[in-house]
């Protein structure tokens, strides 16, 4: 009896910790001003998406793929996607127009800041990457590789709104006026 009670208590505590853990991850990105990023993207959306000539191909595997990610994997997937954009998309894209380039640069800087805050959260808690999170990341990279680099970069930039919407949904982000 005592052993069962103790085990039950331990299980309950673990569940609570996991719940808190997942919630705590969400709190890591609260301070980020997502609204500013979204506004920046809207200003260049038309120019970038107009250059996308392959509408029937997607890189971020649509929302269904991202929607299927469980809360435990959110931290890992967010970290991987931020790395994807910062390391591959922003570097591969060559923007001739300075106004659009400025906006893209501001978005990239915001992604860097988000990476930094997420890394601090990781040091406090464990941001363990499970297999499902790893699989999603690999699919995205594969989609990106199937296209030409310039087209892929343009398409990935054009799909930023999908990525930002997914972050809003999975992380507690307060709306900023």
């Amino acid at each position, binding site marked *: 009896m005592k052993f069962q009670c103790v085990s039950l208590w331990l299980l309950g505590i673990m569940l609570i910790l996991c719940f808190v853990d997942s919630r705590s991850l969400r709190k890591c990105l609260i301070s980020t001003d997502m609204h500013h990023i979204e506004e920046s993207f809207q200003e260049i959306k038309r120019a970038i998406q107009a250059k996308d000539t392959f509408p029937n191909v*997607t890189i971020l595997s649509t929302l269904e793929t991202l929607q299927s990610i469980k809360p435990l994997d959110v931290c890992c997937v967010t970290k991987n996607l931020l790395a994807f954009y910062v390391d591959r998309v922003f570097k591969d894209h060559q923007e001739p127009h300075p106004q659009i380039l400025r906006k893209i640069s501001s978005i990239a800087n915001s992604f860097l800041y988000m990476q930094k805050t997420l890394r601090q959260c990781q040091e406090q808690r464990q941001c363990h990457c499970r297999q499902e999170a790893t699989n999603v990341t690999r699919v995205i990279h594969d989609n990106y590789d199937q296209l030409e680099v310039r087209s892929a970069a343009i398409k990935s930039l054009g799909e930023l709104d999908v990525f930002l919407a997914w972050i809003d949904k999975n992380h507690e982000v307060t709306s900023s006026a």
Partner: protein
Amino acid sequence: MLPRLAVLLAALLSLRPGSNAHGTELPSPPSVWFEAEFFHHILHWTPIPNQSESTFYEVELLRYGIEHWRPIPTCRQTLMLSCDLTAVTLDLYHSNGYRARVRAVNSTQHSNWTITNTRFSVDEVTLTVGSVKLEIHNDLILGKIQPPRPKMAPAGVTYESIFSHFREYEIAIRKVPGNFTFTHEKIKHENFSIQTSGEVGEFCIKVKPSIGSRTNKGMWSKEECISLTRQYLTVTNIIILFAFVLLSGALACRLALQLYVQRRRKLPSVLLFTKPSPFILGSQRPYPETQDTIHPLDEEAFLKVSPELRNLDLHGSTDSGFGSNKPSLQTEEPQFLLSDPHPQANRMLASGEPPELGDSCGNDSSNSTDSGICLQERSLSPGTQHTWEQQVGSDSRGQDDSGIGLVQNSEGQAGDTQGGPALGHDSPPETEVPGEEDPAAVAFRGYLRQTRCTEEKATKTGCLEEESPLTDGLGPKFRACLDDEDGWHPPALAKGYLKQDPLEMTLASSGAPIGQWNQPTEEWSLLALSSCGDLGTSDWSFAHNLASLGCLAAPGGLLGSLNSDLVTLPLISSLHSNE
């Protein structure tokens, strides 16, 4: 040579721009875009140049990243420049978006596809408001915003369900006919209230929605107008009015009650007493106001009193007919003042004087408002007494005399005076016969009223005329005119009642020295001096008072024996002291 030219011509011809027979020569629409509201997605495009009647357009739709292009049957072969794609884009709010393309089709040709520039996603939906309902509530405009409720929305999908958080609205108000003023503040709920701060008129309001976490654009709603009128029948106003009515009613009742009580307090005229003095019996004051009035003694009356009267026992009988032996009371009463508030009446009454009273006393009957003693020889006779009485009775109206009248020897007369309510003049009948009484035996009977002199008599002596200025003074005033009659001045001026004292009688009869006079005079508050003094002035003018003294002296001989001056002086001094 010739084949080369042919080839060259063919090449040139092929390069010539012209319509393509394969159907790709048709120009494509310049631009295609979505104009979408909540579950109202319309695809627009611009027409091709040189559009002919047979040109129509085709639309194809693609879900981004998933499907291939599929044609839209509802928009097939349409001449319109827009097409409603709501039905095929119902899951716009849960997907990555759509892409659409349009091309122009001719009977023989079709143009290239023109694709929408951007991926049609939920970010491109323009936010709108269904309706705004306004109502007025106590100087507040309450508004309720209704989100759009499109028909094409699937069951269970509402504006609130899709945009569950951060719904905001901006409100603009204007007062007709002014311009809109924007609040620049966003309301986070569908219910709002606006404070009008008492303004009256028509107000128009419009609303623009937005989502805090999104970059969706919003569209201003239609303006809703409501007119604000000044409400008078609010609950608070009604309560205040009711309370006011209650208060005023209570006040009115209280006032009415108070008035009623006050009225009750007034004594009936019958019960009105001027002064609680023994004189009341004899003297009647028809006008209470005259109680305090001091009428100057009429010099003329004094002067006219014949010296004979002085010697008369009238002095003794000058005792007022009150029959009350209370000499002390004399000093108390201001009733001494014999003022005639109605000199006119007195005049009239004076006319009724019997000729018997040739002297001033008789003529003064009309003016006998005074309470003084009127010394007249004739008055000593009983007949005169009657006349006195009668006259006095007739003078009742004008005589504000305190009721002192000549007291006859008989008690009955005194009783008459006492009983008569109209005492303005009643006393005289009683006081008329000094001679009949034995001065020594006659007890003090009060004050002897002095009758007034008529104007005529007053004119006799210039001194009398001077009386008028003396009316104001209460103190004894000395008339300078002693000239008129030898030693007989004061009686005319004296007003009021001369207290009759047995001592006086003895004095008068026995010719007591002046010293004896002093005592009674001191007690006197009234002086019955002149028979016909003008008592209307109610002035204590003891002119010389020689006459008064002379009047007081019962026997004429006594007076004659007495030095007028000597008599006057102590009297005056006593009067002063009394004053």
